[in-house]
């Protein structure tokens, strides 16, 4: 009795389930692609981070739990890399690219058309260049016999080997040079959306240019500011080619940010597992920054 009732109800349900499955079939290729090419590598990376996989020196790969992470937090080089990464992100992205991009956008709005065309071409050119090419150009600019020292010599100012004496400043400046265009474009677009009446009203009320910028324009474009900050922070966190081309993380470990440290652990010291764990930490740092920015955006809305 009970069994026949069960089959009676199961029949249409199974039919519905099969129908649903069939209806879902067209999604299959997309799901497979997503799983294989996007979720797959990430899952692999997470798995490796918990193993002792090596490029050479050991053949087996064993699960080692959180060993790689405890090792990282006890490693003075790792701590050094975290600090340098923060300096690099705050110095070159949050302060450098962001303010310079805003300044350029504001100035360009006031500029004549030819000035605007020339400036944006020059600034964007640096951004369009492939990372390694940009890195090499910056190396040529900063190294001992480079253009910067040639200019200083021409001006009878003291020269120095920038990549050796002030390496982190040199790579920060290089990243500002390369990345400012992005902020400039974002802010140029945002400034177009500032209602002209609002600015004019402020002007009529007697607000100076600084006050207008600080009290009218910035509050209006604050959402763009947040979005821009989030994007450039994430871009800068993962900068590798630029630093590697210019200094290879040296001299010593004075420019060894997390991506460079990760590369050196994985491929120079052959510790793939440890390097992947560092990569995972980098992912977490990026996620933390995003969470902070997103929360700030949310607070604005409430």
């Amino acid at each position, binding site marked *: 009795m009970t069994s026949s009732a069960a089959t009676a109800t199961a029949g249409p349900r199974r039919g519905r389930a099969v129908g649903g499955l*069939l*209806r879902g*079939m*067209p999604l*299959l*290729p997309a799901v*497979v692609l997503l799983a294989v090419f996007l979720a797959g590598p990430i899952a692999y990376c997470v798995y490796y981070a918990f193993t002792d996989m*090596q*490029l*050479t*020196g*050991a*053949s087996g790969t064993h699960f080692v739990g959180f060993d790689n992470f405890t*090792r990282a937090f006890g*490693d*003075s080089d790792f701590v050094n890399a975290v600090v340098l990464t923060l300096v690099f992100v705050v110095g070159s992205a949050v302060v450098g690219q962001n303010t310079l991009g805003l300044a350029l956008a504001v100035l360009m709005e006031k500029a004549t058309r030819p000035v605007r065309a020339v400036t944006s071409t020059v600034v964007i050119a640096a951004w369009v260049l492939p990372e390694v090419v940009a890195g090499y150009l910056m190396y040529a600019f900063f190294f*001992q016999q480079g253009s910067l020292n040639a200019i200083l010599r021409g001006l009878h100012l003291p020269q120095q*080997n920038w*990549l*050796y004496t002030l390496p982190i400043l040199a790579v920060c400046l290089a990243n500002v040079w390369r990345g400012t265009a992005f902020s400039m474009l974002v802010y140029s677009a945002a400034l177009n959306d500032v209602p002209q009446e609002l600015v004019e009203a402020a002007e009529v009320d007697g607000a100076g240019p600084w006050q207008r910028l600080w009290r009218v324009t910035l509050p209006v474009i604050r959402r763009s500011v947040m979005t821009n900050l989030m994007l450039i922070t994430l871009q800068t966190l993962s900068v590798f080619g630029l630093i590697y081309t210019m200094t*290879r993380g*040296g*001299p*010593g470990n*004075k420019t060894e940010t997390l991506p460079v440290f990760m590369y050196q652990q994985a*491929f*120079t*010291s*052959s*510790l793939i597992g440890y390097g992947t764990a560092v990569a995972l930490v980098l992912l977490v740092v990026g996620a933390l920054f995003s969470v902070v920015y997103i929360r700030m955006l949310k607070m604005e809305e409430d």
Partner: protein
Amino acid sequence: MRTRLLAATAIAAVTTVCAATLSGCGSDSGGSSGKTIKVVYQQQLNNSNKVQAGFLGPMVDQFEKANPGTTVKLVPVTASENDYYTKIQLMMRSPATAPDLVYEDTATINSDVAGGYLKPLDTYLNTWQDWASFAAPAKAAMKYAADGKTYGVPDNTDTRGIWYNKQLFAQAGIAVPWQPKTWDDVLTAARTVKAKVPGVAPLNVYTGVAGGEASSMQGFEMLLYGTPAANDSLYDTKQQKWVVGSKGFKDALNFVHTVFSEGLGPSAQQALGANFQAAVGTEMIPQGKLAIDIDGSWMPNNWIRTGPEPWPQWETTMGMAAMPTQSGQGSGKVSMSGGWAWSIPAKAKSPDLAWKFIQFLETKANSAQWNSVNATIAVRTDVATDPAYLKALPTNEFFSALVPDTFYRPGLPAYTQVSSSIQKAMEAVTTGQASVDKAAGTFDSDVKTAVGADKTVQGAQ
């Protein structure tokens, strides 16, 4: 109607995926079938150095002529030394990219054997008569301690010593021939050069991470193995443990520190650059900008007619001296030896043909030619006594004579990691970023992390 359409789509999707997988697997099996081998070797970043390419090219032609139907594909990997190791290790990981023959530094062979990348050659060697004429120490360096099997056929070895510029020494008023008895003698000579011959780097000791194994071996180990602990200064063979915290280690580090802090070396910025090795051989020495260089027996490679910087005057300009031990103890001399070997990756598709090509490269005549053009020390005993080889380079006799005082690096998988820790410590004292004690302390903790604290032993104070 709709279900049929869905089914058709599903079948199409599945077929696409299958086809993609199949073609992915199928592509690498095409064209090999034991008739083609891929041979990987390092092309140095200095693009004008084509010694090995120049040697292998004609060898391949002759081999293909002698074995009709076979193809030998030379795959030069252009990279610095460290990057070369990484690249071949990545290649050997997968059957799709694994070469059939790979040129390995004896320093990385053990590590790569432990990684499961290489194939034991014992079955081949057992039936190869020429193997008997290879020098015993060179053979021993190819043997993996854990299983006693041989994983490579060496084609050269080397020794290390001091090169000095006689003309600069004459200007500095130092008598030649010069043979320092202690480390202090070396430093004294460097100080004299600094005082008397301005604009010249007095002494080069390779240092830093960018220099890779050159820093560890030509730079640091030439000093470290000259301390009283000698062969047990880095790895204690009796206790089978890595040595940490020894006085010898700090002394060697202090030597490096002295050279760079007193300005006796090239500028630290120059010495830490990635292409410094090439610059020493092809620019600084030929241009008379470097007085003393602790370096390898292969240096004339740079200056011979076929080298990157032909410099016929080197034979009269450059003098050689043995590297002294710290205070002249023991035999008073120290040298380090390495070398390169041909190995067959475990995932090679045509190992038999690869072996045939090794045999061809390592005949007496071909080895003699290679050792002569490459200015390396012969590993075949019959080549080592061959007058043609001995006369090929005036330095062959001097550097062959260092063989009794030479040391080999610990043949252990962990060596590569210990070696990178040495380079880090050197770089720290070269830039002055850390004191000798602090850098030695960092080395100790690095080694403990790399090999496990139970595999280390406190060195003599």
